[in-house]
């Protein structure tokens, strides 16, 4: 087939990008080469719209061993141990084929982690669906949950935390972000940088089929009414093979055979081979006849662009082929020497003894397009003036019922009960808490992880929203007693070609950067997903932040369930009564405008660090951060989990009662302390200038608010637990 501009455009390339290719090659590419360019230069692989802005994120820190640019980020957790982690999106495929889309998302992120030599020890996910009333929502939710469970459960990696939301902006574009943490010894980390000439390049794992061809290009485009036709671009997962691949790779990694290793994820053999060559400043030669194929008569184009799952590319030390082959034979996996490293600095492909492609590696990588897209700055919306008469008409109990049973607050047990969250025998905090926590096997340490996003805040004011998500991740780690170390981000946005969407991206990233810098909470890995858009409608900007922290002594872990009658609950951080963009304002008052709550990074840091200090001294019996839904929702969850009541007396300040209980001011926590410790705790809080007040005293049962409103624990439970299972049945 003769390549021309139209064919290039059909491959998702722009006209000027095609011209640039011809210029760089000094000729017209053949179809295989064009396929390779389209795979490397799409948004998903090249980050062409985002690179410029991502560069501004803080990525360094004392505990950072590896920042962005590798398969995943790596942080130091002391004693020679390190945690490898990353979050990644699988949004587009999951909308088209929810089960396989979500399953291969989980499979892909786990591969990123074990490629670096780490055994996966925990999975998390952040999933977002359209309005519950939308006809597709239920099936998409069911399919995604089954897919995530199907893959993670079979791999034997616990799914320890997650986040789910519903919003009509996801009606045509759901989000599925999967995150994995792995454990590795600091001196046994593997990278993707090839080194040395004439080293064998080996292919291991599943055979290559025709599935997923152009998956990465599909994920770099908006949806239209023909979306169903894209089903063949969705990969099909085989978790059993991945389990074998995991064990085989870790077995090979225990020796000294591997120079570089890279999983075949998006854009399969193309991006894995090119990335390894590019990082090593080498060339690579591949004989495509040697690639194990599942189907007959596959063309070089198809072999290079297939996104069949559960495959790895490895550069071995010379003479180690037999050692490696023996291990992959033991695990019944395909193994083939398919090429070698060269000094040509080209990628050269052969098929039936003919050269079918020859491209200088640097023009694929370094010369890939980078755009400074136009973007629009957003203004901080004006505050709404909500009249006290409106608020005073509301009954606290009615509001609490509606808010607790709201789809974005209620218990997600229906989801996480379908995920094996206890396999590996180290899960000490299950889903449903502020963070999931797993022990570092055989030690006193534990690792906490949380995944968060606040699309509504980001939509109302991207800069504030970006900061808020990082702060919330930080708070969720603090609340379980973990010292926050670093984050990974999954940036889900609409089309970068629209100024509004690009503006949302730029300012959210700016907010994330500011907060992560201030909190010394660097970004070590991540992924960008643009074009979450159907025709002209894009999603609300949804950066998901995955935070990881360390608990040095796991017996000091904190959970949110109230522990003991007569203990006191303190509110840490100031309640100002910010109602705009709160769940209360949006659902009860039907008020969708206004600014999100302000994020004061000084207070976030100071409050968080002071709480860690109190936890370390043993004063904190339970803790929970105050986020979506506000104060009363937070204390309700603590009551429900601890099966205890509370007698609340609102302190005498000027804020309206409803605002006080349902405002979403940031930087706040609830902590439970013993009466006898109150003096000492207060002293520490005052010394650190942390705003605090008493919320109430823990009782046997019933939540009593200001001596006039009574809500029993059973009522709280019924508000909180029933919505999702009823919706799905």
């Amino acid at each position, binding site marked *: 087939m003769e390549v021309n501009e139209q064919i290039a455009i059909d491959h998702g390339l722009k006209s000027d990008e095609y011209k640039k290719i011809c210029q760089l090659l000094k000729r017209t590419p053949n179809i295989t080469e064009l396929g390779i360019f389209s795979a490397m230069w799409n948004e998903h692989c090249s980050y062409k719209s985002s690179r410029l802005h991502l560069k501004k994120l803080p990525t360094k820190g004392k505990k950072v061993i590896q920042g962005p640019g590798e398969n995943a980020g790596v942080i130091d957790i002391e004693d020679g141990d390190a945690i490898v982690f990353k979050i990644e999106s699988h949004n587009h495929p999951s909308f088209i084929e929810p089960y396989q889309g979500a399953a291969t998302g989980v499979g892909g992120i786990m591969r990123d982690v074990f490629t670096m030599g780490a055994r996966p020890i925990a999975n998390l996910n952040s999933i977002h669906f359209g309005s519950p009333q939308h006809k597709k929502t239920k099936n998409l939710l069911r399919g995604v949950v089954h897919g995530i469970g199907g893959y993670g459960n*079979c791999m*034997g990696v616990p799914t320890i935390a997650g986040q789910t939301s519903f919003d009509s902006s996801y009606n045509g574009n759901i989000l599925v972000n999967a995150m994995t943490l792995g454990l590795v010894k600091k001196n046994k980390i593997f990278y993707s940088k090839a080194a040395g000439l004439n080293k064998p390049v080996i292919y291991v794992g599943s055979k290559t089929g025709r599935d997923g061809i152009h998956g990465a290009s599909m994920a770099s485009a908006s949806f239209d009414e023909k979306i169903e036709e894209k089903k063949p671009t969705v990969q099909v997962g085989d*978790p059993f093979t991945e389990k074998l691949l995991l064990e085989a790779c870790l077995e090979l990694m225990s020796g000294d055979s591997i120079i570089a290793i890279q999983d075949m994820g998006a854009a399969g053999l193309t991006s894995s081979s090119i990335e390894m060559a590019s990082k090593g400043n080498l060339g690579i030669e591949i004989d495509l006849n040697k690639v194990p194929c599942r189907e007959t008569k596959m063309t070089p184009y198809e072999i290079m662009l297939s996104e069949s799952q559960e495959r790895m590319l490895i550069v071995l030390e010379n003479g180690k082929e037999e050692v490696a082959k023996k291990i992959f034979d033991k695990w019944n996996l395909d193994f083939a020497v398919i090429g070698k490293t060269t000094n040509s600095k080209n990628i050269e492909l052969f098929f039936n003894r003919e050269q079918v492609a020859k491209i200088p590696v640097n023009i694929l990588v370094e010369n890939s397009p980078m755009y400074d897209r136009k973007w629009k700055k957003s203004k901080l919306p004006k505050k709404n003036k909500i009249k006290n008469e409106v608020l005073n008409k509301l009954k606290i109990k009615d509001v609490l019922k509606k808010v607790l049973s709201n789809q974005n607050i209620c218990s997600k047990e229906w989801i996480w009960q379908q*995920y094996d969250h206890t*396999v590996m025998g180290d899960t000490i905090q299950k889903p449903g808490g502020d963070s999931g926590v797993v022990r570092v096997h055989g030690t006193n340490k534990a690792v906490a992880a949380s995944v968060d996003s606040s699309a509504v805040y980001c939509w109302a004011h991207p800069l504030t929203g970006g900061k808020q998500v990082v702060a919330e991740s930080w708070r969720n780690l603090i609340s379980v007693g973990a010292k926050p170390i670093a984050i990974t981000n999954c940036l889900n946005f609409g089309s970068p070609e629209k100024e509004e969407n690009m503006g949302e991206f730029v300012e959210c990233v700016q907010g994330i950067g500011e907060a992560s810098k201030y909190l010394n909470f660097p970004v070590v890995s991540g992924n960008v997903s643009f074009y979450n858009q159907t025709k002209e409608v894009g999603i609300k900007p949804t950066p998901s932040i995955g935070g990881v922290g360390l608990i040095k002594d796991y017996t000091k872990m904190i959970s949110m369930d109230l522990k003991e009658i007569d203990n006191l609950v303190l509110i840490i951080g100031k309640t100002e009564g910010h109602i705009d963009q709160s769940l209360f304002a949006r659902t009860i008052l039907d008020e969708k405008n206004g600014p999100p709550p302000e994020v004061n990074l000084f207070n976030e840091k100071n409050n968080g660090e002071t709480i860690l200090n109190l936890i370390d001294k043993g004063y904190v019996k339970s803790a929970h951060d105050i986020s979506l839904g506000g104060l009363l929702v937070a204390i309700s969850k603590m009551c429900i989990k601890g099966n205890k009541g509370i007698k609340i007396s609102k302190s005498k300040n000027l804020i309206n009662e409803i605002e006080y209980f349902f405002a979403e001011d940031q930087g706040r926590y609830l902590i439970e302390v013993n009466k006898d410790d109150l003096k000492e705790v207060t002293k520490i809080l005052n010394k650190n200038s942390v705003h605090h007040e008493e919320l109430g005293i823990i009782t046997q049962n019933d939540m009593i608010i200001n001596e006039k409103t009574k809500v029993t624990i059973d009522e709280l439970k019924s508000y909180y637990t029933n919505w999702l299972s009823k919706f799905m049945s």
Partner: protein
Amino acid sequence: MKSSVITFPGSNCDRDMDVALKKFGFNNKMVWHNDNELPKSDLVVLPGGFSYGDYLRCGSMASKSKIMQSVINFAKSGGLVMGICNGFQILVETGLVPGVLLRNKYLEFICKNVFVKLDNKENTYFKNLNKDILEFHIAHNEGNYFCTKDQLKEIKDNNQIAIYYCNKEGKIEDQYNPNGSIKNIAGIFNKEKNVLGMMPHPERMIDQSLSGEDGSIFFKNLINNIK
């Protein structure tokens, strides 16, 4: 006391079982599915997981694997064989215990704590246990035990039902049945009571920081009974 845990390629609770057995004093060995010989053992455990991917009926391929012939012979000669979760599914497929395990009633994987009631303490597994109700943990997609009426009568007559799903107080009712299994059955023995298959994972309940500690009670008692 010597124990062996069989590792199939897709086993994923083999390490957890190894940790548990060692914690309570077993000298445990991991045995590869492709081996022919079992090491000398007082107890053989088939752990949870997805043995060969379980794309066919769960456990069916594993039941035909190399090592299983030795396990079957060991069981038939009176040796203690315990199958947990996928291990139970494998035992059912070998015919060492009667019945089948169907997909969960609500067609969903389920991971949570459950209570089980012991039905029979006249065996090495539960003898001398000072509790009748244990809190265990389940995590499975195919734990819906089913057998024919005749089989049910037979296993009842032979006291082969090991544990039932129940509530905290030991009430065996439909609402406490997590997967639709017939008569709330969570685990059964062979006729001779040396082979036990059960869905719950005692190895996930072996320390205070995990889901609970009733697994510790079970393993401590088990090793004392074997001694």
